[in-house]
């Protein structure tokens, strides 16, 4: 992270509740350009809700969110998003390449079909996530890891300045998880990245900073993560297990 760089995400005093159930309380968070921030916390701790607020899919009941110096709705097209659960039917008759091309919506003219530049960008994005060979495959025939790569390409093809990922490795095995995070580390050279995970031990090897969210939010430099912190976040029952494969 460069000192003095303007924050690309600035959240001040944010609170949000679904009906009477408070989900987020008085959140402050600043993410600077070029940072790789991990957002961790227990299930139902409000991680996905915070992402949806940053993306402008939900509106805060109090507090302020600025993304890239403007409102989340305005900034949306300059943000790439990889959802935890794909919000589409896996048996939809569509190829991986067509899915990636949808990431170009909003960049090319509204009328008509995709332009040559869009196809080239989709080709490049699939190459970047090492999934060129999947271009013609039907989306329903991809494995979890392959689908995640295609969704990452869909987020990248829109030339985002910030990349937001919600549990990108929740449904795939540990080896592929490492590959995806290596890819993200490489992308971090040009993009600010905010990634949600429930696996604090795993992501701390990649990110600069961890934000712990359980209704309220606490930030830590990655070096400061130890057992006490994990206990504080998840409660007494969690044991940290050191493991290498």
């Amino acid at each position, binding site marked *: 992270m460069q000192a003095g760089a303007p924050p690309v995400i600035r959240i001040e005093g944010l609170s949000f509740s679904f009906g009477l159930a408070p989900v987020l309380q008085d959140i402050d968070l600043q993410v600077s350009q070029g940072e790789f921030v991990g957002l961790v916390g227990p299930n139902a701790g409000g991680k996905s809700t915070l992402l949806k607020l940053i993306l402008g899919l939900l509106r805060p009941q109090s507090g302020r969110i600025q993304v890239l110096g403007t409102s989340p709705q305005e900034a949306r097209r300059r943000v790439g998003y990889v959802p935890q659960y794909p919000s589409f039917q896996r048996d939809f*008759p569509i190829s991986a390449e067509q899915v990636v091309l949808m990431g170009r919506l909003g960049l090319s003219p509204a009328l008509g079909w995709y332009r040559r530049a869009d196809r080239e960008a989709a080709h490049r994005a699939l190459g970047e996530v090492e999934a060129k060979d999947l271009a013609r495959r039907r989306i329903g025939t991809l494995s979890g890891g392959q689908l995640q790569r295609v969704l990452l390409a869909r987020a990248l093809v829109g030339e985002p300045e910030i990349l937001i990922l919600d549990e990108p490795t929740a449904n795939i095995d540990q080896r592929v998880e490492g590959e995806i995070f290596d890819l993200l580390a490489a992308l971090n050279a040009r993009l600010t990245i905010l990634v949600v995970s429930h696996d604090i031990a795993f992501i701390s090897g990649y990110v600069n900073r961890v934000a712990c969210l359980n209704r309220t939010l606490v930030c830590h430099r990655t070096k400061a993560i130890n057992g006490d912190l994990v206990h504080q976040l998840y409660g007494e029952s969690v044991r940290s297990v050191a493991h290498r494969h």
Partner: protein
Amino acid sequence: MDELIGPFLSALVDQPFLRTALLAGLLASVGCGVIGTFVVVKRIAFLAGGIAHSVLGGMGAALYFGLDPLLGALAAAVVSALIIGSVRLAWGAQEDTLIGAIWAIGMAVGILFIAKTPGYSTDLMSFLFGNILLVAPRDLWLMAVLDLALVVTVALFYRQFLAVSFDEEHARLRGVPVGLFYLVLLCLVAVTVVLLIQVVGLILVIALLTLPAAIAGHYLHSLGGIMLIATLLGAGFTSGGLALSFTPDLPAGPAMILLAGACYVISAVVSGLLRGYRARRLAQPSLGTP
């Protein structure tokens, strides 16, 4: 087969009304291929059924006030589509209950109007089950205009309709006005329903809207391909049903639906067997290479 189809073909040459009916079927198949594909992949068949049945309200009202029932049908279909669509966009949940309500209310309104329409009682059956032989030549023009409107709208905004059908959340994040395109898509469904009501009546519409696209979807994996094949299948079912029903003097609408239904069942079984066969071949790769 010859004695079944032969009289139909010679009547096609002699009888203008039969040519009109055949053309009506072909025009309707464009809508059933293009919009039916969206109905199937977006899984809104129940919604389309609700729109179709509510149309009776508009037809009844138009008859009562001495207007063209087809225009009444078009108005009712679009109004129902907009009501169902806006309520879903505004409140999200309980879409199925609302569709059921619109479905029944539309029919009730229609039956009351028809009961109170002065003069001799209108043939309710031809609204419900269609009568392609009664399509007037000027109706063909209206159908052609509706077809043109459908095809042009879908061609211009194909990417947006595809995005809204595939993944609404992502489309919204890419700045696509999802609500607007969803409502336009439902209006296109409404227009298609009116096109098809001419041919098979409002109760059987749902079969022609879904079966051709579903059959094409058994074998094809691109939206454009499914639209093309579904249109051709729709043309085959309407023309085939008309031909098969002619000699034994059966109603044409049910003949078309049974033809489509039989093809759907056969296709479902065949494509299921085909998938199983391919999966077994993939599971034993060594068998093919001695």
